């Protein structure tokens, strides 16, 4: 029997209240603003790969919680991030998305900053002698920046724990492999997704949706041992999905998709042929391995229903043209704008958001539990990680994800 309005609006009938969320977490502007303060500016956020700022003066501009930023390598080889705005009138200083420069010059009044963020030049400086300030008072605002396994992260919170402590054991599936090679970014794309940034991220973390991708259905779900992998939950909202419970790798059968080859050449050192792993780093980075391919995927929140999703592909620096071509070919089969999976994921997120924004679907279920015989570990089609994510989100927000608005109203 179909449900009437009252039934539809009442919380799902599940044994555990933590196993669903209220859709307003994806759509509410107040929650979005609060989330910027309490979640996005207090956790470590992935920016780019070190190869993107390889030499002194190499920079990459980006933004986080609306704040324009520039990440740049200094003459001392240290990678720093600054708020990308001039201390004078606030013009954006570095306007290109990437490049190299000796110093940063604001195009409005030609003030100049060095790569360490010091204000080093003002035309006709004597004009500030009477009233001040001095150049020393005008250096750029620096944002904490650190590197883990070649991945550059920032944190607006000066008091947050170190990046290494923050990631902890969640680095286990990828740190060694990243360090086995000198890597560089060979693929980049970004897409404005009409959906919430968390919905994008959690689509990566929801392996139950592998049913919907033809690629995953044929090459993975059909493969023996597919379900025998546990979620490995880590502190700070992280988690990963890699080996079978017995420690053996999960090897995807790529040949099952028409005209594809198995991935047993060009496999990254430390992975088995065809091996799949995914690591999810709170709040929004997913690190994927598909034997010969590495994908870094995250998004930048713009509004409750709008995020900019970025995909990066990593390859081995200096590999032959043929190897690079093969690796690229395999990467873009599954990821990127002309791929089998990424465009499907975009469609799922946008379709979901359209309904949630209209209030059509008040709740989002995450009550799947498929346990191993040990009664402890949960299999990959369990919503284990989703519950973990929302637990961390609720903790940081001080609001339960299953009823954040009522809580808000009560507090007002």
């Amino acid at each position, binding site marked *: 029997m179909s449900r009437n309005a009252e039934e539809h609006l009442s919380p799902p009938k599940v044994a555990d209240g933590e196993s669903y969320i209220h859709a307003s977490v994806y759509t509410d502007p107040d929650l979005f603003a609060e989330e910027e303060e309490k979640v996005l500016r207090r956790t470590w956020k992935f920016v780019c790969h070190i190869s993107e700022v390889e030499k002194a003066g190499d920079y990459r501009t980006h933004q986080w919680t609306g704040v324009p930023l520039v990440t740049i390598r200094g003459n001392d080889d240290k990678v720093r991030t600054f708020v990308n705005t001039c201390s004078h009138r606030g013009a954006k200083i570095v306007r290109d998305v990437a490049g190299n420069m000796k110093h940063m010059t604001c195009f409005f009044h030609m003030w100049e900053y060095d790569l360490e963020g010091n204000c080093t030049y003002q035309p006709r400086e004597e004009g500030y002698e009477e009233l001040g300030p001095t150049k020393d008072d005008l250096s750029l605002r620096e944002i904490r920046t650190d590197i883990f396994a070649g991945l550059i992260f920032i944190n607006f919170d000066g008091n947050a724990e170190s990046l290494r402590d923050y990631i902890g054991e969640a680095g286990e599936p990828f740190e060694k492999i990243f360090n086995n090679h000198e890597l560089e970014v*060979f693929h980049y*794309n970004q*897409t404005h997704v009409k959906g919430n940034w968390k919905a994008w991220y959690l689509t990566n973390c929801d392996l139950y949706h592998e049913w*919907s991708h033809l690629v995953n259905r044929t090459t993975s779900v059909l493969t023996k041992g597919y379900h025998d992998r546990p979620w490995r939950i880590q502190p700070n909202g992280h988690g990963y999905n890699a080996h079978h419970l017995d420690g053996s790798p999960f090897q995807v059968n790529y040949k099952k998709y*028409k*005209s594809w080859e198995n991935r047993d050449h060009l496999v990254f050192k430390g992975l088995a042929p065809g091996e799949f792993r995914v690591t999810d780093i709170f709040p929004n980075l997913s690190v994927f391995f598909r034997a010969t391919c590495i994908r870094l995927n995250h998004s930048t929140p713009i509004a409750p229903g709008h995020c900019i999703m970025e995909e990066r592909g990593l390859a081995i620096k200096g590999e032959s043209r043929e190897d690079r071509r093969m690796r690229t070919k395999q990467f873009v089969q599954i990821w990127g*704008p*002309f791929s*089998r999976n990424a465009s499907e994921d975009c469609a799922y997120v*946008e379709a979901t958001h359209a309904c949630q924004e209209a209030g059509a679907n008040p709740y989002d279920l995450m009550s799947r539990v498929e346990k191993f015989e040990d009664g402890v570990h949960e299999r990959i089609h369990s919503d284990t990680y989703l519950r973990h994510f929302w637990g961390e989100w609720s903790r940081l927000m001080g609001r339960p994800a299953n009823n954040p608005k009522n809580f808000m109203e009560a507090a007002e």
Partner: protein
Amino acid sequence: MTISDDQIKNLIYKSCRLLDAEEFDDYLDLYTEDFEYKVTNYSPEIKSDQEWMDANRAELKGLLANVPLHFRLLGSFMRHATVYDIERNGADTANALTYVTIYYTTPEGATSVWAVGRYHDKIDVSGDTPLIADRNMKLETREVGIGTHLPM
């Protein structure tokens, strides 16, 4: 008999029409046996050229056969092309440069520009009819919404 410029133009325009109509078998017939198809662009973010699609006959055939089994953007594409230049490389091949605008129409009938780019084609003119030996769809547009399974 030498292949005329008009025959080459017609071949390129036909490739657009057949893709619009999703007549994939006929589309593949416009190519040589060992063609290479690519979608490429320049990314200022990583300061390098990159490939977003790279497929030979077998791969494109496999993909196009699977397209109906995939979830994809609803609606339709329409390609508008103009051949700007044809250059002969001796008797057997020619290079053609074509500017392409791809319009996307939603199921509700709203149309927008989806992407612009250029076909850099190598045309085999050694036989009775011209065939596409290589195609590089060099995209100017890098933001293509949710993306697509299809060659462009």
